[in-house]
């Protein structure tokens, strides 16, 4: 039993390096906790050398490198051990623990596989009887559902109404003529055009439209000889006054 020959192995048959390690550890026929890690490493490296191709999974080579390093640490203890690093004995112990846990889970699997499985070794009633009668006369509807349904109706009605743009209050030229005629009567002298724009317009578009209408209206009245217009400079304020006032002053 001494010179245990390295078994010829196909790595494809193993589910990763830990699987192979466990198999090798089992071949040592000792307690997994007391396994010779050094012997295990030698076996693993021998198998890897014989079987691994470089293109094969990298984790085999990573494991081989780590094991080679672990073996060197076990054989040649570090004269100045790094206090933060784990000792090789601890690392070897952890490897043994992992192998034990994997072996335990293999045993767990065997235990499960020995159980008679439903649909394999034992069978349940193929055609169970329900022994229930379904009463479908009731209605599954509550007040929230009714409200939700009506809410849906209301929302659809709201969505169906045609889009109407916001109505604008437009100060027409006719409006402006009427307002100017009234206001001019009480006007003693020149007044700025903006004074004749009706108050209470907040929308800037409506304000400018009213100013434009008032200007057109004033031009219209000036043409009819009702008033005079004056602008002293480009873009300066437009002033207007009643024609009769001008006539009186001229006289």
């Amino acid at each position, binding site marked *: 039993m001494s010179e245990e020959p390295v078994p010829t192995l196909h790595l494809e048959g193993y589910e990763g390096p830990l699987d192979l390690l466990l198999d090798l550890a089992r071949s040592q026929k000792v307690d997994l906790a007391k396994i010779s890690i050094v012997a295990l490493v030698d076996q693993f490296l021998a198998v890897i050398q014989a079987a691994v191709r470089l293109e094969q999974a990298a984790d085999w080579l990573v494991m081989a490198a780590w094991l080679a390093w672990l073996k060197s640490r076990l054989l040649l203890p570090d004269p100045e051990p790094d206090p933060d690093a784990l000792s090789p004995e601890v690392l070897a112990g952890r490897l043994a623990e992992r192998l034990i846990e994997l072996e335990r889970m293999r045993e767990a699997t065997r235990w499960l596989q020995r159980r008679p499985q439903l649909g394999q070794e034992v069978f349940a009633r193929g055609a169970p*009887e329900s022994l229930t009668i379904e009463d*479908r006369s009731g209605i599954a509807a509550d007040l929230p559902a009714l409200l939700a349904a*009506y809410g849906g*109706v209301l*929302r659809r009605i709201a969505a169906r109404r045609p889009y109407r743009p916001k109505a604008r209050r437009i100060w027409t030229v006719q409006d402006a003529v009427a307002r100017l005629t009234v206001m001019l009567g009480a006007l003693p002298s020149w007044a700025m055009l903006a004074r004749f724009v009706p108050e209470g317009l907040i929308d800037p578009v409506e304000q400018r439209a009213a100013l434009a209408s008032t200007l057109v209206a004033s031009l219209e009245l000036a043409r009819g000889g009702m008033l005079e217009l004056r602008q002293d400079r480009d873009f300066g304020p437009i002033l207007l006054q009643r024609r009769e006032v001008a006539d009186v002053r001229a006289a």
Partner: protein
Amino acid sequence: MSAPPDALRIAEALLFAAAAPVTLDKLQAALPEGAEAREVLAALAEAYAGHGVEPVAVAGGYAFRTAPDLAAMLTKIVEVPKRLPRVAMETLSIIAWHQPCTRGDIEDIRGTALSQTTLDALLEMGLVAPRGRREAPGRPTLWGTTPAFLLQFGLASLADLPKREDLLPGGGPGLAL
């Protein structure tokens, strides 16, 4: 028992595990040499006489069934309430809030034709009932909700229905219904 005990056990397990009634041929194929399916079944029926379950001939084969007296006793009635389809719920809600109203009113509000089936279903469930006719061309039937409607939705009276305005937040006064 005239049948060999193994044959009886096999017949028992097979009738139990099969998803469909087991035919005589199928049973015969499973039985050990020398056992006759018909005899085994007879022995099985004898062994189960007076039990809570018994082998019976059904649909061209044999299966275990609960003893009739126990089946009646153990059968539970499970309420499986129906869900109302969306169209029915909407129609019911329109009748609830707009009653009395005609089928034409409902169609106007929903913006689509209302099938007779929907109205029939609500009638059948007793949730709505006719409330006279509108004095208009064709004298269409007016519909309203019933006491069963109040019971179903846990309402003391129709006044307990939330106000239409409260149902559509932001809908506001602009809704001409």
